């Protein structure tokens, strides 16, 4: 696979605030990479640095093998879709889409042809004569996409492009974006704080927090094999359950907060190998179930029926509430015991928050 974008030790400081710290990443041709993280995690700043709208404090950016760190946005051959669309209000949809081509001095007939071609893909043909103020927000978003597509850039950069739409349109546009990506195979870097968008569209997700990359991986990887407590908690809704354990030694198991001891050979071996004492067991709600004789005892606090499943809140130690998804219709209450699907459980070092594997 050809590398399309490379970030090397990219950092950005605003005064005393380290917005982005030492980001190193390769993005390959045709890939759809999503930067995901809470607000202020540095994902948008990173995107803006790739675009050239923000100058990095340190580090380098390469696009198609060429170092572009010092180049202005115009010379990077990228397209940027803004959160607020940023359509030029004094131009029609057609003129908006044609605008980047005019900068390149493309002949008029070709501009016509290419704008119509893009409009056709996006289903905008009947709206080309309208001004942005006359368009619905979904159509504005499509025009913004058209403006990005028309020049066939090296990379598409998108900054939360769906956040201005209502839930229904967002879902439609999500599918539309996915379709476009498959159709034109464009390398895309997409920023969002919405994990559903990230999970549903990304080839790879870059999870960021406090200016640093926490993990890079496929949606499945970041969901099932989070590298650290932040990723484990941030991905998934509700996030992963964290159960503090004290390792008692090989063959003696782990002590839970309520004093019970649980045994699991593989986990114990991991703990021995890394020499940890205090650790955290991470387990997603769907990998816990209510069983006759499970490993963890608890008391149900609440039940949320979700139709095809029930979501329980179970108190396993004073103040320690974990979430359990149970697929059975039957409702449980009072004292229950929980069975752990160990193959889907993760062990984290309590000190560093890193996954032990």
């Amino acid at each position: 696979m050809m590398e399309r974008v490379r970030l090397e030790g990219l950092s950005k400081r605003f005064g005393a605030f380290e917005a982005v710290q030492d980001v190193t990443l390769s993005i390959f041709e045709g890939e759809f990479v999503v930067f995901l993280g809470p607000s202020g995690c540095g994902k948008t700043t990173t995107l803006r640095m790739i675009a050239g709208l923000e100058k990095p404090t340190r580090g380098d950016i390469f696009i198609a093998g060429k170092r572009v760190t010092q180049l202005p946005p115009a010379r990077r051959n990228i397209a940027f879709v803004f959160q607020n669309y940023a359509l030029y209000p004094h131009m029609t949809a057609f003129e908006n889409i044609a605008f980047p081509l005019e900068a390149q001095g493309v002949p008029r007939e070709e501009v016509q042809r290419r704008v119509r071609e893009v409009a056709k893909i996006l289903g905008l043909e009947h709206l080309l004569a309208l001004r942005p103020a006359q368009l619905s927000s979904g159509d504005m978003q499509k025009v913004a996409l058209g403006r990005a597509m028309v020049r066939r850039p090296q990379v598409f950069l998108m900054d939360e492009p769906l956040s201005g739409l209502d839930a229904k349109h967002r879902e439609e546009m999500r599918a539309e974006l996915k379709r476009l990506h498959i159709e034109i195979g464009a390398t895309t870097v997409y920023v969002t704080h919405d994990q559903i968008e990230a999970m549903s569209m990304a080839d790879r997700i870059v999870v960021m927090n406090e200016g640093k990359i926490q993990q890079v991986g496929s949606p499945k990887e970041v969901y099932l094999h989070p590298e650290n407590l932040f990723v484990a908690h941030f991905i998934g809704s509700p996030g992963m359950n964290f159960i503090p354990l004290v390792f008692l030694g090989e063959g003696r198991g782990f002590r839970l907060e309520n004093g019970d001891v649980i045994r699991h050979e593989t986990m114990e071996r991991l703990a021995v190998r890394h020499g940890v004492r205090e650790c955290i067991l991470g387990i997603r709600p769907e990998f816990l179930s209510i069983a006759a004789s499970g490993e963890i005892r608890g008391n149900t606090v609440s039940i949320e029926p979700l139709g095809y499943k029930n979501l329980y809140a179970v108190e396993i130690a004073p103040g320690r509430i974990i979430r359990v998804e149970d697929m059975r219709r039957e409702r449980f209450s009072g004292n229950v015991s929980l069975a752990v699907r160990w193959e889907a459980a993760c062990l984290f070092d309590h000190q560093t928050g890193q996954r032990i594997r």
Partner: protein
Amino acid sequence: MVWRVAKGILITLALVFFLLPIYWIVATSFKQWPDIFAIPPKFVFRGTLVHYLTLFNIRPEEAAKFGQVGKSLFPPRFLNSMIIAGASTVLSVALGTFSAYAFSRFRVRGENDLLFFILSTRMLPPIVVGIPFFVVYRALGLIDTHIGLILLYMTFNLSFAVWLMKGFIDEIPREFEEAAMVDGYTRLEAFFKVILPQALSGIAATAVFCLIAAWNEFFFALILTSEKARTAPPSIAAIQGTSGINWGQIAAGVTVFLLPVVVFTFLVRKYLARGLTFGVIKR
């Protein structure tokens, strides 16, 4: 109902208050000499164009009746007003827009102090600097020159233009020029192609204010000009004949003098009403 009637009365009163002087001047400019002084004032009278004809030297022989000696100086001075007010407006709006853009978009060191300094030039009454300006202008040979008054009016209006335009440009989302820059344009091109069209309403409003200020300026025009570059305001005030103040011609001069500002404001009213950009950007 009561409120609507009261509102109507209030609006009528306000209109009378503001429009009566203008009516008075316009009416006087068309009155024959005796009617101008009639008490009680005449609202119905036989009109005449004699004051306009003498003002523009079309029927100079009539002027002698009012004691005027020689030709009326109004036409060249009216032209001076146009040149000086027009040029200073163009300059202050252009410089003001660029400075405002810089203040709005770039991290300027000491931005607030600089902006305050710019505003502070408006804080003293112009008359205070009248004599220093006279001395400096005399030394520089700028007395009674067009460029002298143009620079002066530009300086006075610039602070106003910067502040007003900064407000307008702050309202234009940065994403517009960022989008244009990503689309392949330089910042300057983005400014002209995207920001400027968005700023037109602000530019129109600023230009109206600058034009009115420069157009009506009296004091500096009086002390810094004498012949060549004298503008209309001090010139109108000085219309006198041997038999006293020529009220008819003064009224005609004032009426003509009012017109350009009215016409200009009328022309840009489309831009003054904002709304061109309304609802385009989601916030």
